[in-house]
């Protein structure tokens, strides 16, 4: 694959899976500027890893691995606090007119609030569950056993159920 082809293929993969990047960035960064930086960092790392992409995995699995690792990574957090050295102007992925759909009143808003309160690793697990990834795939992405995946997801769902009802009543 020459450089031209490679960047075109990469663009197609990004286009087809842009929702993954946006949802991960949204879950890990509440601040819009930090979110732009995170999306840039994820894209850079995806591009760097694109040569080594193993086609036995789906593109989405590959994207989850890299994007979640970047989102959780300390180096990104440290650097986003200091602002990255050469941020690109504008955002790589955005809604027209920087529209967003953060709210606190709808069911989705409440669910996003609950996800935001989770620890980083639990958050990754829950995002994968909500994206209907199988336990086997989640286990591969997270690097923990399938039993552990099932136990943790059940525990988080139970806690979500209780909190969700409470928040709905408020």
């Amino acid at each position, binding site marked *: 694959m020459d450089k031209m082809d490679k960047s075109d293929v990469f663009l197609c993969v990004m286009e087809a899976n842009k929702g993954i990047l946006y*949802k991960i960035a949204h879950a890990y960064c509440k601040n819009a500027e930090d979110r732009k930086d995170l999306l840039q960092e994820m894209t850079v790392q995806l591009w*760097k890893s694109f040569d080594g992409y193993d086609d036995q995995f789906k593109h989405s699995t590959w994207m989850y691995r890299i994007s979640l690792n970047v989102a959780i990574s300390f180096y990104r957090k440290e650097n986003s606090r200091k602002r990255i050295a050469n941020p690109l102007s504008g955002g*790589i992925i955005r809604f027209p007119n920087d529209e967003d759909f953060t709210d606190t009143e709808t069911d989705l808003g409440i669910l996003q609030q609950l996800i935001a309160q989770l*620890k980083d*690793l639990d958050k990754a697990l829950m995002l994968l569950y*909500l994206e209907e990834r199988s336990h086997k795939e989640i286990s591969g992405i997270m690097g923990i056993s399938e039993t*552990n995946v099932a136990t943790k997801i059940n525990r988080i769902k139970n806690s979500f159920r209780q909190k969700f009802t409470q928040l709905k009543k408020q």
Partner: protein
Amino acid sequence: MGHTEFISIWKQQNAKIEKTLAINELLLKEVTNNKARASLKSLIKLKTAGIIAFILYLLLLSYALVYALSNYSAAWNYFIVSVSVIILVNVKGFADYVKHLAWANRINYNGSVMEIQQQLTRLQLSIISHAKSMCIQFPFYTTFYLSSEWFPQQVGPGYLLFQAVLTGSFTYLSYWLYKNHKPENLGKKWFRNMIAGSGGRSVLETMHFYKEMEEFNKEDE
């Protein structure tokens, strides 16, 4: 609320995301042309600059040590011992920097979350441990200027006391920092206060995350 309802709620956003979310192709091209920089690169740059600084400092110290050895007299003893220890500690620091640089260059995010985060945390913890090992040299900066020609026989009790307090407190400080700089002390307020200064926040976050990973990996029942 049933278990699958969360998934239905989550899916509410998919249609809007697919319909309206736009990729900025121009910026993406900048990434594919390697114009955008990844954050680990700043660590790599920092470590490379550190390696150069270590080399220069070690050369300077080695020159001073060689000079003292080649013009040896008993008066140089304090200097020779102090500078030798400072050199050893800085050689260890230099080796750590090379190791960190090699690790940072090797990290590629295309692995399982636990595997990559463990690598990153190991790197961060090693950077912390590097900082604490550098503390070992502190007391020797209080002794290199002494000479057996005039110390201790030609100094008054005031200076003797001053030197003993100075070297003693630096020794204790080094020992204390070395001994207490560990994740197990994270829950203690004095430790959090101690590292809350320079770079303390990232140290705390690393240690928190280290514990979070241990717990995450552990629950398997």
